[in-house]
């Protein structure tokens, strides 16, 4: 596998040559500082851009053009990385050798139509397309409440800090959708295409020189200047008194969400120690939470923790019968306290390190993970996979205990479990 990055005036081009896959993947990443107001607009915009285009103004023409590219797949994905709101345009095509034509060339020209030539006239997006994508966005927002586990997490984030990007719902907001119209969306498009940082990734059995030329021909951004944005959120202090909120809901099971602030992590802790801490606490099927709370006390089916170094948060999630709530809280706190006191074995650290290394090794089996890994190295200055493997081995028990003492429960939210 060979990687190269070329800095262009308005975007960065990353190319990865490998013969591991039968497909070529193209990912165009738009990235800017997140605001709550932009989320709904971004969702609608990325949907409408991949619904029709100026060249393919009817849905049927658009989908058949994709089909003619040997059933190419093109989808978008909106997500948050700390302070950043990212949108990926992700295209997957068969490798040229399976189709005996220059599919990459045709695919990039299609993608260029999608990005630079949207279905706009009189400074407004196409009416039919607009109606369809806004209806779908509305349904997506309404449907969110159907998943009580995710809803519990979202409510917990809002209680934790409603002004922080970590509490923004990436499905969007109905009030923002109501404010939007076809003209405003086009205004937003003009801003979107100019004001984002742009990274183009292409991975496959490609020739760098040839691919660079095709990209140059098809991607002509105007005036985009790379803006440096700090991805990490500011580390905040935890509440003096833990915030605990219980909301009634008619479900069979209570959904518990807990946010812990991790205060003042240094770089090494953010990149390495926190992962090991999380694996030991609740990140795997051999973690303290799983072994003790699930297996020993059989109180729940799922219980897990996840760490986010950019948000400086550790999130705990579980589902169980409401009558066991206080017992669950007691046990969760006890496991956390045990790590703080150093009551865990060297073996648990070794296992966590192995998990980390194994996950790094498996990156090479997925095009999207390879891209994500190079993107993280570029954006977050993450070290190379080899370097990460070396560094993870340096994590000591003392460091884990130190970190554990910087983790504070801030907000506890319990949803439902009130059977009808």
């Amino acid at each position, binding site marked *: 596998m060979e990687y190269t990055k070329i800095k262009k005036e308005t975007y960065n081009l990353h190319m990865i040559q490998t013969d*591991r*896959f*039968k*497909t070529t993947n193209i990912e165009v990443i738009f990235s800017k500082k997140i605001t709550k107001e932009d989320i709904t607009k971004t969702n609608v915009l990325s949907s409408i851009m991949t619904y029709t285009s100026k060249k393919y103004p009817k*849905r*049927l023409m658009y*989908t*058949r053009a994709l*089909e003619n590219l*040997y*059933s190419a797949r093109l989808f978008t994905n909106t997500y948050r990385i700390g302070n950043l709101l990212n949108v990926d345009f992700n295209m997957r095509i*068969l490798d040229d050798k399976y189709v005996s034509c220059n599919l990459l060339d045709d695919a990039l020209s299609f993608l260029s139509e999608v990005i630079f030539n949207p279905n706009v006239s009189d400074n407004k997006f196409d009416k*039919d397309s607009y109606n*369809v994508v806004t*209806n*779908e966005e*509305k*349904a*997506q927002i*309404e*449907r969110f*409440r*159907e*998943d*009580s586990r995710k809803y519990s997490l979202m409510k917990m984030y809002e209680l934790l800090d409603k002004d922080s990007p970590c509490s923004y719902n990436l499905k969007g907001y109905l009030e923002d959708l109501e404010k939007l119209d076809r003209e405003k969306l086009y205004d937003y498009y003009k801003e979107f295409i100019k004001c984002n940082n742009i990274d183009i990734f292409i991975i496959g059995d490609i020739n760098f020189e040839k691919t660079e030329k095709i990209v140059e021909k098809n991607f002509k951004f105007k005036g985009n200047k790379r803006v440096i944005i700090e991805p990490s959120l500011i580390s905040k202090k935890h509440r003096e008194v833990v915030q605990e909120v219980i909301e009634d*809901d*008619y*479900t*069979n*099971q209570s*959904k518990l969400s807990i946010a812990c602030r991790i205060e003042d992590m240094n770089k090494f802790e953010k990149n390495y120690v926190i992962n090991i801490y999380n694996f030991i606490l609740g990140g*795997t*099927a*051999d973690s303290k939470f*799983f*072994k003790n709370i*699930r*297996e020993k*006390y*059989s*109180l*729940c*089916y*799922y219980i897990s923790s996840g760490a986010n170094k950019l948000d400086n948060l550790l999130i705990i999630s579980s*589902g*169980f*019968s409401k009558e066991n709530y206080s017992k669950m809280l007691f046990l969760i706190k006890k496991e956390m306290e045990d790590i703080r006191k150093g009551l865990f074995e060297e*073996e648990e650290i070794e*296992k966590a*390190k*192995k*998990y*980390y290394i*194994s*996950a790094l*090794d*498996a990156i*090479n*089996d997925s095009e999207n993970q390879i891209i994500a890994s190079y993107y993280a190295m570029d954006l977050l200055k993450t070290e190379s996979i080899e370097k990460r493997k070396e560094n993870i081995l340096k994590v000591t028990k003392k460091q884990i205990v130190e970190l554990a003492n910087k983790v504070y429960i801030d907000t506890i939210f319990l949803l439902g479990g009130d059977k*009808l």
Partner: protein
Amino acid sequence: MITRELKDLNIKIYEEDLDNGLKVILLPFEKRTNYALQYITRYGSEIDEFISSTTKKRIKAPYGVAHFLEHKMFEQEDGLDPFAFYSKTGTDANASTGYKLTSYIVEGTTNIEENLEFLINYVNSPYFTDKNVEKEKGIIIEELNMYLDEPENRLFDNNNKSVFVKHPMRRDIGGTPKSVSKITKEVLYECYNTFYQPDNMLITIAGNFNIDTVMNIIKNNKKLKDRKKIGSIKTFRVKEPIRVNRKEKRIKIKNLFLPKFILTFKKELKETKAQDIYKFKTTTDILLFSLFGSSSYFRERMQANDMYSLFFTSCGSVDNIFLTEFIAETKKVDELKDEIVNLFLNGEITPDDLERGKRVMISNEIIDSDSPFKIMDKIVDDLIEKNEMILNRIEIIRSITMDDLIKVRKEIINESKDNYSFVVAYPKE
């Protein structure tokens, strides 16, 4: 050892049946870092009545016992459970229970030899006690409660009860909190001893590994060597009638915010060979693609009229039954249903639709073949369902003609135009 090749994909599959009846399927993939091991028994939630291989008595087991057994296999007498063992090398261990099979899965990047050895050993070492069986009930009941809280699952559950008259698909794989609470260690041993026999099981390995190394481990494993063939297992199954159980069912579901429905056309599956079933299903897929797919007139028109916010189609067989399904999220439930039925029965298909459909199917097969795990899943499905492997999927897709399309269509319409179930879920309050 038999070597087979997946036509048009340049992929080799190796198969060997051991003396004790265990089947081994190997799919080495050079360009891969990780591997997946699976130890599978042809025993899932659909079997609840059988003749015990030890006592020869007829056993009626509580619903959900196959899934319970899957959980309990992770309990080991020496205390070293699979999660603890595999985590030492950063390997993932998991298991899953379906209607027709239970599978124990290991995914990793290193230590394949020890990991395979351990997999064989632990699946061959049941250890059930009154205490550990009792303990598991709390966990499983919470698992069932988790699914009960997912509104979509309520819809699918109601749908299965509408479509099927007698088939075990009417029941949840995990059983109910009530049936689970009746499970004992005795019944777990009965099920284990009957269905976890080498000639009822297979081991599959896909990804990065060496054939000789893994075969050596499988052939020399002591626990496996001790196991003998037991021959055919007698199970009791009722034959599923062709008619749908309920034509229409409208329900209200808590925490559902947008109405959803499932419309299912049911007919008899006459094909018996894996290849013929695959051809019938793929022809139906092309039919659905042409009439209802992302590039159909139907979708363009429906979306322009805000007729749905989600819409999928699917088709497939369950034993002697073939189902064609339409799933939608919509505020215009009855209007959309009428549009679907009308187009399904009367819509036109052109040779151009067929060619486009075939091209999409072939492209999907090639993309799927990038993953040895996906290929292995298809092989296992074929083997469990029909005891055959389909090696020429792309060739079969290419062979589909306009005549095939017309014939399949006519058959589905004739047999299921008056035999469909319609289940609608509305928000409660």
